[in-house]
């Protein structure tokens, strides 16, 4: 049995933990609103770009298609771009992402492909390195900026496209969390490079003038598309992190509350027991006289 003083100390420490988790929860709730707004504001660009891509890709097909669309012709070396968060305290978000990445890597390896990782964010590094020590390639550190924006997405995209042009890999997959709600963030795997050909080819029938030619526009457009994908992933990550963090911290605060209640009951019982013992001693002493 812990002494009264020890119990008091424990209650105090749980209380201060609760204060921290509560504060983190409120910060996450405030940030979530902003991150969600940012994710929504980024959608028009992505949808419009996708629409333009669809109408262009339908026209430029076959041999003249740029490498980013057509691929290298091989399907051997795969690059997994895993977007994790930089900070913890967000529940199972990162471990879910890592799990999805591992699964995908295993699947590709089982099919006889070589796999390499490109890590964005800090939290995925350690668990993936434990599993695949030799496969961790380069990464991108997003922890140096407060909120990763388009500039970071651009930097990542440029590096990836550079690696692709240098023939370091054939196919790149992007693994990132999709924000559904504060309770659910699903890891999503999308093919990033070569850019998947849009399934619906829009044909408006109108004759569109291109300046410069279709091929040149498409060549300009594809890197932009990759950048937009990465930017979207960063936005989703931000929203997911805050959402997951809010939920996790809410749970932690509640658990701490329960623990405090339990400890307080034990503390009161023990105090009561001590008082009773003292009383018995006094009465017994008085009686002996």
């Amino acid at each position: 049995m812990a002494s009264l003083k020890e119990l008091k100390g424990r209650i105090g420490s749980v209380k201060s933990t609760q204060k921290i988790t509560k504060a983190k929860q409120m910060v996450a709730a405030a940030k979530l609103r902003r991150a969600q707004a940012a994710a929504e504001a980024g959608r028009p660009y992505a949808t419009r770009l996708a629409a333009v891509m669809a109408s262009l890709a339908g026209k430029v097909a076959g041999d003249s298609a740029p490498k980013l669309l057509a691929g290298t012709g091989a399907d051997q070396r795969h690059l997994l771009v895993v977007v994790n968060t930089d900070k913890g305290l967000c529940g199972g978000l990162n471990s879910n992402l890592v799990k999805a990445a591992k699964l995908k890597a295993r699947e590709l390896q089982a099919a006889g492909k070589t796999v390499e990782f490109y890590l964005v964010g800090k939290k995925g590094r350690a668990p993936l390195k434990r599993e695949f020590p030799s496969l961790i390639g380069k990464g991108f550190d997003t922890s140096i900026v407060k909120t990763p924006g388009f500039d970071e997405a651009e930097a990542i995209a440029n590096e990836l496209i550079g690696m692709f042009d240098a023939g370091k890999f054939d196919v790149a997959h992007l693994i990132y969390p999709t924000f559904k709600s504060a309770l659910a963030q699903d890891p999503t795997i999308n093919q990033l490079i070569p850019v998947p050909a849009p399934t619906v080819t829009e044909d408006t029938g109108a004759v569109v003038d291109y300046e410069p030619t279709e091929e040149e526009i498409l060549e300009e457009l594809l890197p932009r598309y990759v950048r937009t994908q990465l930017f979207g992933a960063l936005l989703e990550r931000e929203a997911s992190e805050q959402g997951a963090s809010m939920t996790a911290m809410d749970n932690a605060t509640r658990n701490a509350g329960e623990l405090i209640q339990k400890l307080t009951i034990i503390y009161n019982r023990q105090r009561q027991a001590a008082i009773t013992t003292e009383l018995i001693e006094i009465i017994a002493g008085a009686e002996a006289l």
Partner: protein
Amino acid sequence: MPLHFELVTPAKLVRSEDVHMVVVPGTEGEFGVLEGHAPFMSTIRDGAVQVYASANAAPEIIQVRGGFAEVNEKGLTVLAEHVEG
């Protein structure tokens, strides 16, 4: 009939409004877009997009970097990676 003009960046929808004319800095030269322009697509160079709210008004100048412009039956859409100001 006014021209529907949209300026979009990855971060947000900067403009969505009906204007008289927009002059876009295309890679192969500036071009003005009025209502009823034929379908057209062009990449743009870094420069100023001039927005004329009405025929006689002074243009509003928006600096853009990197992107492309698309004209279809719905109007003009400029997708720019960066917008200054």
